[in-house]
């Protein structure tokens, strides 16, 4: 399987588009980190720091998909990771940086024919504590 990954080391302070309160990851304890995850979605596009067309099933024809995360209460600059996992096999581990105090950041992958199937993205801090797991499928 070939996965094309575009690491968005892009991050920016956010004040406007947080869409409701952050939900803790199901089954995973909220990390005692210096940041709180407000929003985490997989989407088709991120434009001007805003995610568009969030979904749990993406057509391969989308070409590229994004994992968008938005943090609040970031005490200090810190790394987070987006682990892209295809059928329980790690596909990519992307390091991103958070900066005080509200920060949004995203990573993305380029889709190919062989990427069809169930995926998940695990969002963790540097110590491996899981903020949230996003599950979705890449389909026809």
């Amino acid at each position, binding site marked *: 399987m070939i996965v094309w990954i575009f690491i968005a080391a892009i991050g920016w302070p956010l004040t406007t588009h947080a869409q409701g309160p952050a939900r803790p990851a199901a*089954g995973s304890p909220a990390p005692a980190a210096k940041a709180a995850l407000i929003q985490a979605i997989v989407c088709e596009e991120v434009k001007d720091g805003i995610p568009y067309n969030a979904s*749990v099933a993406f057509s391969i024809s989308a070409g590229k998909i994004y994992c968008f995360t938005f943090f609040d209460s970031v005490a200090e600059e810190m790394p987070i990771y987006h682990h892209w996992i295809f059928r329980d096999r790690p596909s990519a581990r992307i390091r991103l940086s958070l900066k005080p105090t509200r920060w949004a950041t995203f990573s993305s992958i380029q889709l190919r024919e062989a990427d069809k199937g169930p995926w998940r993205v695990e969002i963790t801090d540097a110590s491996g504590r899981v903020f949230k797991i996003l599950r979705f499928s890449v389909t026809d």
Partner: protein
Amino acid sequence: MEKLLHVFNELGWQDVVDIGLNSYILFRFYVLFRGTYVFRVLIGLTMLWFFQQIAAYLGLIVTSWVIQGIVAVAALIIVVVFRNEIRTVLQAKNLKSILWGFTAKTRVAPVDVIADSAFELARRRHGGLIVIPGEEDIEELVQGGIAWNGDISREMILSVFFPDNPVHDGAAVIEGDRITRVGAILPLSRRDDLPSYLGTRHRAALGLTEASDAVVVVVSEQRGEVSLARGSRLRPIGSRRKLVQKLEEHFGLAEFQAPEQRKQNVEIATAALVSLLFITGFWFSISRGLETLVSFEVPIEYMNRDPNMEIVHASVNSVRLNLSGSGTLIKSTRPDQVRVRLDIGNAAAGPNSFSITSSNISLPPGLLLKEVAPQNVVVNLDVTVRKELPVQVDWVGRLPENVLLAEAAVEPARVEVVGGKRILETIATLYTEKVPLDKLREGGGVIEAGLVVQPASLKLASGSSDKVTIKYNTRRRE
């Protein structure tokens, strides 16, 4: 000679038991049926079978077929025609007399009185029927009559069978030195080969002796003749001395073996020897004739597995056994008779290597193991654990261009599975079967999907459903 010794050296204890047991069965068959027509017909059938074998060996195909047909039909006819005789032997006798009928009798009886009485009755032309039971109980065979239990004497016997006596037509039963019953009714023999001059009295005597080990002294009213019925034979007794001798034999009182007894012993010994030789020859022709090689693919059975462990993987699931034996044996071998069993009771978690030896293989008697391939099996075992896994929907297909699957919630979100620890360490998600997107309703809905539990060694924990409910929402693309 060396070859013969080699063959005997290869005999196992099972072979010896096999030959011994079957020889004894044949011998007992002879003992039980000797003197009857069944036995004579069986001898004829056996000869026919030999002729058929010879004909087949010589390539006389049609002759062989014809004899084979005759033997098959005759075997059926025997059962039908001689059903009474067969039933008499197999049902009327007790288990002991069927399996071992040589018990010496020790009871004391007034043999002289019985012999005197019988010949006096014959002289007077008075009919008589005197029953002397053997080891077997004849209670169920003898019907009616009057219980008496009186001391035996010549006068008493004569008076019982005196023509004006109301019980003179029945039988008198003598047990020990007492007449226990008079006027008794005996079962009639069902044989149709008895001479026509023998009347009901003689038929009744044979009816009882065929079904038990009793002897019956019969005195013919018409001919004034004394006969002795024993087994299926009815023999005229010419003299008092002869009757005494026969009765003493019956009671085990003879101090020395009479020529008749010696003759009988020789006959029995010969029958035993012939049975042994016949079965030995038959056994060798079956088990050692026409050596054939055959190859069996046999699945491996794993025994004594620790219930907390499970087999994750085995290098092979079956082994190939090359066996040799007679063509007849190999043709008659069923797959379930050839088994390969591995004891994995002491196996540890992880890969375990086992050598397959003859001790792991069970074969029908007569077959020999030539080769096993492969000789080694690696069995990977794992400790069984339980693990709760999140369920993820495996979506397939495609939604309309302007529609998005906004969210989907699975109920239950997590399911417990049971399986090998090593396998479960590599599994973090349980997927549903493929759920087609094009079947979803616009706006949202609820669907059900089955769980795919893979690999096959994994199982859902008891109480976990193999189906989940998916609540979904769709919306228009932005």
